[in-house]
């Protein structure tokens, strides 16, 4: 057996970008041995990517930054040898596999590196065979890259780097674009590569717990400094590394709950997801938003008028539920969960509660049992087709007032198409969409936008203007609403989302989390009753994701209905009241969180179960 050999040694590394007072990395010490897997975690901006760029030589050769301290990769100093000479020792797989491809076919992409090294054709062919075999993707060899799934692209990106025969593999947020099933497969694959090839693997991850099964060590960075370096089990209890595992803290109570101090996670008292977080909410987060149409948000007082005294909920304030808007029971009893386990199929546990049947008027398909008497949004038998296939097949769902409904499913299962169809961007082949009693199936998007807000996955796609204020009001202005009318609401939103200081800043200069908040403010300024969010947690570290979840909780508390697409089982199960699972364009699970998770387990969808469930 080969003895582990140290392949990376970083000593006292400090990196400072020009113009930045604070160093991106500060006195970092780190080692990596052959066959070792180290997870480097920490919030966005903590220096993970900077570390990767130092180890691969891009800093300082391609990216200007001042480096002090010592870095050795395979015995070489990146500062002296440069990117090219390091490329055969260390390979970097970036976050988005699609963005790093430079050819059209799998074989060409994997061969790209060896070709640049002037390898003869037969040697290149051997390396391509080996690399594709190492990632279990030999069958993809002649496929076009554009035809591959997200997981397949990630494997090809890995193979393309492996073909350089590196000793060290660095993966930067490798699961950001993968669904839980593909994530599980990738982790398994990395485990095999590590044990069989003896590679040293460094994974840079916001949510390290996904890799704890194969990790030897976890290194946590905070503000460029190593704050923890130890085995995964010790990292579990630490805030930065494991805060995705902590229960969701909903900043305000849901309509119908009794006290402000009882922060209630979406799953209520589901026994398998741990106790709810009873941390104190930020009182400021619940302040009312003065402005037309926005008083429903966090403001139960029907007599409230603009210009009145600012509302701050007291510690014993009771939040009233919007009249006539009954919510589903948020807490599931132990009995209920056990009945869902012992039941004969999905929904067995649901019979324990009184249901109200919804009639959508279509006369078919929609006669399902729901716990909602008066849903805000109803989708009935929605079918959506692309020229070659049906993407959604008779999808029916409801979203109640104050309810957060999560949609999960593999990539390509139709989640985004469902949101775009509800929004009206895509015209459905059949089916109906009913919003608050009105059939909006044929209403144009611009009109729907006043009642439904949608947030896309990439915040940059929704930033159109040159300063934040304009960004927030551009929607209403485009619809002919005078700025004076939307100004109070917009100003309140800037205040609420901590964006006042950036009012005149260019939106694209903001941080990722700030951009997300600008997106949310720009949508909320029209005071929509329903919010659709497409994978809003992608690319966000645990703290930011929790912030966003808290914001969504506040919105739900104000009676908004929220339909949330996401891949993160832990966050989704804690953020949502109900989970749907889409498979091949069909809803195969639609149940409150605990029952849905039991259904996932029964159906073998283990990758979609939160860790706390296990």
């Amino acid at each position, binding site marked *: 057996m080969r003895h582990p050999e140290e392949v990376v040694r970083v000593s006292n590394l400090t990196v400072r970008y020009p113009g930045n007072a604070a160093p991106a990395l500060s006195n970092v010490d780190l080692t990596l041995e052959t066959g070792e897997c180290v997870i480097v975690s920490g919030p966005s901006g903590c220096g993970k990517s900077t570390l990767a760029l130092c180890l691969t030589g891009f800093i300082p050769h391609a990216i200007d930054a001042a480096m002090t301290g010592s870095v050795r990769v395979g015995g070489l100093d990146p500062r002296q040898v440069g*990117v090219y000479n390091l490329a055969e020792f260390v390979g970097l797989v970036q976050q*988005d596999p699609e963005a790093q491809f*430079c050819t059209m076919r799998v074989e060409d992409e994997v061969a*790209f590196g060896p070709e*640049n090294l002037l390898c003869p054709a037969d040697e290149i062919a051997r390396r391509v065979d080996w690399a594709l075999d190492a990632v279990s993707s030999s069958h993809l060899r002649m496929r076009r890259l554009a035809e591959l799934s997200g997981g397949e692209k990630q494997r090809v990106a890995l193979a393309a780097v492996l073909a350089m025969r590196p000793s060290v593999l660095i993966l930067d947020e490798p699961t950001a674009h993968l669904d839980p099933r593909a994530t599980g497969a990738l982790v398994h694959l990395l485990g095999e590569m590590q044990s069989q090839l003896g590679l040293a693997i460094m994974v840079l991850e916001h949510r390290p717990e996904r890799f704890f099964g194969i990790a030897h060590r976890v290194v946590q960075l905070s503000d460029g400094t190593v704050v923890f370096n130890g085995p995964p089990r010790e990292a579990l209890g630490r805030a930065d590394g494991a805060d995705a595992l902590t229960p969701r803290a909903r900043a305000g109570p849901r309509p119908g709950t009794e006290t402000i101090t009882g922060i209630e996670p979406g799953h209520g008292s589901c026994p398998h997801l741990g106790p709810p977080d009873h941390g104190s909410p930020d009182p400021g987060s619940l302040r009312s938003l003065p402005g037309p149409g926005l008083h429903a948000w966090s403001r139960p007082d029907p007599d409230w008028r603009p210009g009145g005294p600012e509302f701050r909920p007291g510690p014993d304030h009771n939040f009233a539920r919007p009249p006539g808007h009954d919510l589903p029971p948020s807490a599931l009893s132990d009995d209920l969960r056990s009945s869902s386990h012992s039941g004969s199929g999905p929904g067995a546990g649901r019979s324990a509660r009184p249901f109200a049947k919804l009639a959508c008027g279509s006369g078919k398909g929609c006669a399902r049992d729901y716990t909602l008497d008066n849903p805000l949004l109803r989708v009935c038998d929605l079918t959506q087709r692309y020229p070659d296939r049906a993407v959604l097949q008779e999808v029916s769902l409801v979203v109640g007032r104050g309810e957060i409904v999560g949609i999960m499913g593999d990539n390509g299962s139709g989640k985004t198409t469902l949101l775009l169809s509800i929004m009206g961007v895509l015209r459905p082949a059949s089916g109906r969409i009913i919003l608050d009693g009105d059939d909006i199936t044929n209403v144009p998007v611009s009109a729907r936008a006043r009642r439904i807000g949608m947030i*896309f996955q990439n915040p940059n796609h*929704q930033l*159109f*203007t040159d300063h934040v204020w304009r960004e927030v009001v*551009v929607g209403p202005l485009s619809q002919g609403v005078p700025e004076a009318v939307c100004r109070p609401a917009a100003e309140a939103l800037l205040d609420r989302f901590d964006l006042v200081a950036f009012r005149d800043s260019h939106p694209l200069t903001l941080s990722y989390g700030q951009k997300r908040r600008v997106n949310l403010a720009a949508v909320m300024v029209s005071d929509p009753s329903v919010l659709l969010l497409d994978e809003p947690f992608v690319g966000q570290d645990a703290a930011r994701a929790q912030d966003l979840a808290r914001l969504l909780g506040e919105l739900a508390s104000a009676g908004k209905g929220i339909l949330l697409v996401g891949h993160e089982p832990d966050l989704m199960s804690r953020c949502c009241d109900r989970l749907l699972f889409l498979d091949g364009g069909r809803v195969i699970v639609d149940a409150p969180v605990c029952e849905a998770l039991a259904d996932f387990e029964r159906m073998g969808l283990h990758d979609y179960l939160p860790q706390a469930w296990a």
Partner: protein
Amino acid sequence: MITCPKPGLNPLSKLVLLVSFCVLALRAESPGHAAVPCGAVLLAHAAIGLPPAILWRRLRGIAVFALVLFLSQLFLTGGGAPWGVRAASGVRMAMRFLNIILGSHLFVSTTSAEDLAYTLMRLGLSYRYGFTLLIAMRFVPYFRLQSNTVLQAQMVRGIGVDRPSIKGVWCMARYTLVPLVVTALGRVESLAISMEGRCFGLHPRRTFLRTVPFRPVDALIIAGAIAVVGAAAAIL
């Protein structure tokens, strides 16, 4: 050894054919001479299985422009020349234009950009230029997808791109450019790191795994095309 997955002519042969065709089309003086290559290229379109309806849909704008060329020759030029001369000149101009576009369309329809790029790189074109072509081809669908997403994002904000109006078009153009450029720049950075991290640019030359077959028929076609062009130059 891996070869071009689709059997067919080598892209180099097709390129030589295209150039020869364009030379012939440009040298054709009479409408009758110009109609010959036009008919030939239309037949070739039929031979590759492209339905006339699709061809018309793709090229109707070109046909309209050819008509404009003909009419402008007929009415706006000539300086007192007889109508017949002006009409012949107009037909010649329009046919030249149509022939070059039709020939190029046939070439693009039957040749993959990657095969062409790899062929040219193997013939000595600097691989930096070859990969510029390949990467540009990769960016085309990406830009289409991104611009579609940005337009959808505008629609859901109530920016009236679903309402046909001058203001709507203005808003669409104004609000599409910035997000598109920003996402493209992010992608360029990732691509540069990916390529340099795999030693792109390390050596002045590089090796290739992919080969695009060059068969005897390709040699015959190239020789034939050159001969025809030479003969036409001598005769016409």
